[in-house]
């Protein structure tokens, strides 16, 4: 057990280091974006003086290194800074700066919670379906069922997300009005209503992520079927289903867990298109809007959250893979 804890501590340390490096990359990249916030908010006709005033006020004239450490210092303490866009620009006329600024956390927080809700619902549907399909495809490999499952998941992953979204809307909202086509959820909504409204985007995303996980489950299991211990299980007269579930699956967990983690990370970071189609107030939309208006603190916060999600999920996958290996769980 001690060795596992040490490995986990090591991975955690490495994850934090990665996050630090990523924060530098994010900051540099965001600062390389052409145009600036002051120009964007004041429009073409703004006087250079007005632009300069806003830049000065927001600290945009400080050297990049200073700004990076200010941002990083704040982020470590949980303060991601203030959103430019939500600021009360009337106050820039006077000396009373800051009082009208809205914090990034207040803006990003609820959106992120929505995204996590959508990702969670999708995962609850997609992961069991994908793993079950994968197991069945491995069990009935090269059969009609196997091929049908492959063709269907592959075609759903190959079609653009918005297309799958519109197909689902057509069938489940327009022709058979079972589910609402708009997912405009808000605070204080009943859980059941929230769930109903989230279902269509969740189903769309399920179609997108199932293929990966299912095919990896199938491949990881089939890869093991030539092992001597699988032959042994068959020679003990064990039923094919039990051979797969009891003998192959536990040894195939590591690659399956890893591909699930990658897909979950995608669900948190890459679902802008689906959010737009269903008007779902997730973090993806906020991110794109903020880039448009050069709201740098929000962009940076979103990037940092995305990076953290990737690192954390991969870290969890690593740890679960380690735990799934009896050699590490029970050292000699």
């Amino acid at each position, binding site marked *: 057990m001690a060795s596992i804890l040490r490995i986990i501590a090591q991975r955690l340390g490495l994850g934090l280091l990665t996050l630090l490096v990523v924060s530098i990359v994010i900051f540099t990249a965001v600062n390389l974006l052409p145009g600036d916030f002051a120009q964007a908010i004041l429009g073409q006709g703004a006087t250079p003086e007005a632009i300069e005033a806003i830049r000065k006020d927001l600290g945009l004239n400080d050297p990049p290194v200073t700004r990076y450490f200010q941002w990083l210092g704040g982020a470590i303490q949980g303060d991601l800074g203030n959103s430019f866009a939500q600021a009360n620009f009337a106050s820039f006329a006077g000396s009373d700066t800051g009082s009208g600024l809205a914090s990034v956390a207040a803006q990003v927080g609820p959106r992120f919670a929505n995204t996590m809700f959508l990702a969670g619902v999708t995962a609850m549907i997609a992961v069991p379906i994908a793993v079950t399909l994968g197991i069945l495809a491995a069990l009935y490999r090269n059969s009609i069922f196997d091929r049908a499952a492959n063709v269907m998941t592959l075609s759903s992953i190959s079609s653009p997300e918005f297309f799958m979204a519109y197909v689902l809307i057509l069938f489940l909202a327009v022709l058979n009005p079972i589910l609402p086509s708009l997912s405009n959820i808000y605070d204080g909504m009943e859980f059941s209503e929230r769930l109903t409204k989230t279902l269509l985007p969740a189903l769309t995303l399920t179609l997108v992520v199932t293929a990966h996980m299912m095919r990896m489950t199938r491949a990881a299991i089939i890869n093991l079927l030539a092992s001597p*211990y699988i032959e042994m299980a068959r020679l003990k007269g064990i039923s094919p289903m039990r051979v797969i579930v009891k003998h192959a699956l536990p040894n195939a967990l590591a690659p399956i867990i890893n591909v699930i983690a990658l897909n979950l990370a995608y669900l948190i970071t890459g679902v802008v298109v689906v959010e737009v189609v269903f008007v779902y107030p997730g973090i993806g939309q906020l991110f794109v809007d903020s880039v448009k208006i050069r709201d740098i603190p929000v962009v940076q916060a979103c990037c940092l959250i995305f990076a953290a999600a990737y690192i954390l999920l991969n870290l969890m996958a690593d740890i679960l893979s380690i735990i799934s290996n009896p*050699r590490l769980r029970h050292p000699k």
Partner: protein
Amino acid sequence: MSESELLLKVRDLQIDGRSDEIWNPIINGASFDLKKGEVMGLIGESGAGKSTMGLASMGYTRDGCRISGGTVEFDGIDLVNAAAAVKRDLLGKRIAYVAQSAAASFNPAHRLIDQHTEAPVQHKVSSRSDSEADGIELYRKLRLPNPDEIGFRYPHQVSGGQLQRAMTAMAMACRPDLIIFDEPTTALDVTTQIEVLASIREIVEEFDTAAIYITHDLAVVAQMADKIKVMLKGDEVEEADTRTMLSAPTQEYTKSLWAVRSFQRPQKPAVHTSATPIISVRNVTAAYGKVPVLHDVSFDMHEGRTVAVVGESGSGKSTTARCITGLLPPKSGHIEFNGEAMPLDYRKRNKDQLRQAQMIYQMADTALNPRKTIGELIGRPVQFYMGLTGKAKRRRVDHLLEEIELEPEIYFNRYPSELSGGQKQRIGIARALAAEPQFIICDEVTSALDQLVAEGILKLLAKLQDELGLSYMFITHDLATVKSIADEVVVMKDGRVVEQGPKDDMFKPPHHAYTDLLLSSVPEMDPDWLTNLLNERGVDNIGDAAVGKM
């Protein structure tokens, strides 16, 4: 023989294997009967179709194989045409299997006892708790250490010999009528093998289980089987009861198998005490990371002689070779070549020093680059060490191929995959010779080969030694090989040299206790050998149990 006693009836069994979309015959019609409680030995070289036939006796064929003709009847049930569910009901319950590598055949994800109880529970033979208690009882019978506790470990926490016995226990879990033992001791050291053999024989006798015992080792089968069937490339050669088969084989092939162990080189006269050894290992201590492997190892090797380094797996034989070649620089001590200390790290040695010590590996398959032709494989060291190019290089490679008795015109442009195991090992020898070394390390070079082929390699090495005055360091765990080729013997155990001296002295008493154990553990062709040994020593004084007492 009355019909009621007959358990397994195989008639004209034919099995095909698929390669490149074509079905080729693997077994060309084999027939035999097995009575209840009878043990049949199935012997032959690799590729003879022994395992395929063993599995077919269970009604099972591996992917890419099919039974194309003949019948297999188990207790009146036609296994060739039986439905999968019918066969599943028999497998594990009435017919069980013990695989060659227990380490690979136990599922790494489950504890031994969980795997043991699976068949009885799934076949509804007994309850989980009854079968668990029975498993512990079987572990005790098979003399596994800590029988109450060992089942609750995972396979990687148990040694190879113990796993092999646990697998025998697992096969016994439903008290089957028939067990197929597929080379169960081939991967084990001699001292471990003898323990497993004794356990298997005892338990098979106790439960009156019929068995097919597959092996390529004649001496082993002589201990285990009531009758022996010999196979050659998918054909039956002959079948007879064990004593008849050993004393009076009728077929030429069987006779040649029996005669293999006859090759023996005469002991060379003792070396002058003043002679400078060609390689001298001086007080070498080495470790992999923090794990110490060698402790103060010292021995000499002289020109034109063969030093056999023997010991079980993990005794440090190959590590010593790695120290000599500089692949693993020792922590202390040094390696002398013709009386001069060599740099310990191979990267610090010059080309001439590197040239003098060459190596031949156990697995010729993995030691030869599959994408290079034979000409390129041998030509590379010829060019690198000797600086030969063009026609001179070609002449040298041709000459080397002639030395190893392969036709240059035929083999120069072939790839390793187009060669047999023995031929590949010959290429390994030619590649070592290409550097014109004085000293060659042979690391288990015959272990992966069949006996007849191995004998050919040993004879070739002996011939080359006579012609070229080579010195060999011959790493092996097989004492028969030592007997046939060595001049001096070094016995290693746990990274230490426990005994060394001329071969004739080593095979004569008095020995060091460990050497004695090693020697006495090598099975002999006498069918009473194991029985006599057990009577003489008692079951607790053989194998690992005896090693543990040292």
